[in-house]
């Protein structure tokens, strides 16, 4: 069992403090959901955990397996087992999904074992084919340029494909449900559920309760104004769906 521990995390963008002391511990095998209205800092948390240069950590620490990862570059964090499924996956023209994923898989292997000579092409193809079947992606996707001309649903499925291929210890899913119709959401959720394991911890960031009907969380947290203000089980999500955030705001006012 491994832990991801976020301690008193303060993060700002261009002199504006957005995260004002976030505390959260996630263990492998657990699925946590962070909910909250727009503009409360959910995506900032995701980016800051992954190390986006735009987001400045002002205070606090993030421990992965006991090691503070905040001084590491994003690629080094990925090598330690952190993964971020992007809300808005970026298109990289001219770089095929297969070429990109093989580069990523090999970079991780190499980082964890400098002697590693990389995954063989047949082994990679086999792995990729299996993961693509799991996510109901046609094999032609492997040859398409990364996220270029992909529909919203395709982008999100390819994010999960990457998660499957890289097999992270902790995965952050940033609004993976946004922009998906019910069918696409079902497919993506099925993929995430199939990948759930005792070896992986998941942090789902979402605006809507809807996705939690498909991916059942063990813990639900509410974020307001840069802090986690409420934590509970799945029943907390239900209450939010029925009553909205007003009661949380009231409770935390003043």
């Amino acid at each position: 069992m491994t832990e991801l521990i976020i301690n008193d995390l303060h993060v700002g963008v261009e002199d504006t403090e957005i995260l004002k002391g976030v505390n959260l511990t996630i263990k492998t095998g657990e699925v946590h959901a962070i909910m909250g209205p727009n503009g409360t800092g959910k995506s900032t948390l995701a980016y800051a955990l992954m190390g986006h240069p735009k987001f400045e950590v002002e205070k606090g620490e993030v421990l992965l397996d006991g090691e503070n990862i905040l001084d590491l570059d994003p690629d080094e964090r990925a090598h330690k087992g952190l993964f971020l499924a992007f809300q808005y996956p970026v298109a990289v023209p001219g770089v095929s999904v297969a070429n990109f994923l093989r580069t990523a898989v090999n970079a991780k292997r190499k980082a964890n074992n400098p002697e590693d000579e990389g995954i063989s092409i047949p082994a990679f193809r086999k792995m990729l084919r299996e993961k693509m079947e799991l996510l109901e992606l046609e094999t032609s996707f492997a040859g398409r340029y990364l996220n270029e001309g992909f529909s919203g649903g395709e982008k999100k499925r390819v994010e999960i494909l990457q998660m499957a291929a890289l097999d992270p210890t902790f995965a952050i899913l940033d609004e993976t449900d946004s922009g998906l119709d019910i069918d696409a959401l079902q497919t993506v959720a099925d993929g995430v559920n199939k990948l759930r394991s005792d070896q992986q911890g998941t942090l789902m960031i979402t605006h809507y309760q809807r996705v939690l009907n498909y991916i059942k969380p063990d813990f639900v947290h509410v974020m307001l104004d840069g802090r986690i203000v409420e934590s509970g089980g799945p029943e907390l999500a239900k209450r939010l769906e029925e009553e909205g955030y007003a009661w949380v705001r009231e409770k935390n006012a003043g």
Partner: protein
Amino acid sequence: MARKQRVKEIKLTDEDLPINGESSSIWKEYKNKCWDVYQNLPYPSSTDDEAWRRTSLRSLQLDRFQLPNGQAGQSERETIMADYFGVSDAGSRGGQATLTPQEVNLTLSPEWVEQGVIFTDLKSAAEEHPELVDQVLGRIITPEDGKFAALTGAFAEQGIFLYVPKGVRIEKPIYGLTWAPGASVAHLSHLVIYLDEGASLKYLHESTSPQDITEQALAGENWEIYVGPGANLEFVEFQTFGTHMWSFAHKKAQVDRDGKINWVMASLGSHLSKHFSTYDLVGEGAEGQISGLYFGHGEQHQTFNTQQNHLAPHTYSDLLYKGVLTGSSRSVWRGMIYVSPGSQYIDGYQANRNMILSDDARADSIPGLEIQNDDVRCTHGSTVGKVDPDQLFYLQARGIPLEEAKRLIVYGFFEDVMKRIPFQEVKDNLSKEIRQKLESLPKNGK
């Protein structure tokens, strides 16, 4: 009024013209004509000549240059052959040619000789096949096209003539190599390709030199290409000169009725390159596609003047040039689509995209259209931009280190031009060269 002398003249006289008593009359006439024009043309000036506006020849020490006079030794030639031709299976080629200061060495598979393909050095071709050579030599590129076209036309002794007869389709590619060794040398060469009606050819030409010379040297290249009715040419040029070289080239193809050219240029080397690439679509239904890939580092300066001339109705042209600039390198692309009066039903496209990897690098991109007609569809676009930080973060978040992420983005950027190269071997070499250039960059990208 005395004209301003901005460039020191190369010291050549009519004694240096590669003609003698045995030369054929068309060769002599052509050389003499070029020499006449050469003497009457001023050196191009970045203030007076629009086409040269962003390219300065001030530090070019032309007065120090000599013609090469056979400088490459036998042992050097063997190295060249091993480096450039030895790596791959000779059986996969239809023929090959090496131009060195010493000689023009050509081989052609017997099956093509039997079918009447002519592959010989240009000077001998002018003697042995004057009726064919005369149809192309000096007719597609004229000495009036520019000072360097005239210089090369007059003094180039080395050259290739490649003729593919009617209906002959050469499936295996033919390879040509220009090898330009030594310092203070002007390497001048002339390539003539003539595809008769319905012929087809894949041709690759690499122009290169030693990489470790510090004193200047010069390459002047005239390439004249005729693609006959219904003929099809796939033409790839690959320039990897050392950074001491000043490279001047006039390259022009004339494409006749229903003929097609797919032309790809990759330019990685030289200190300065000034290349004029033109195709004239002279017959109905002619199609031209031209693609360029360039990568500048250090203080390289590369300029490309492209011209897509629609001189007949129902012609199609497409241009895509893409460049990556690092260090304090500079590129200039000036493109022009010209549609002549009376040439209706035209499709013409041009796009130039540049990626800047350092603060001091610069790319200028100047598209142009000149349309004397109504019924045409022409578009042009040009962009100059940096690597997208969101792309970098995305790739890094997947575990790909920054430098490798940049490399992947650069490869991706070049991919649509790469796809237009019909030879896998060239793609592999090109990827290798690009990788080396990227790996030699300091870590901060400067």
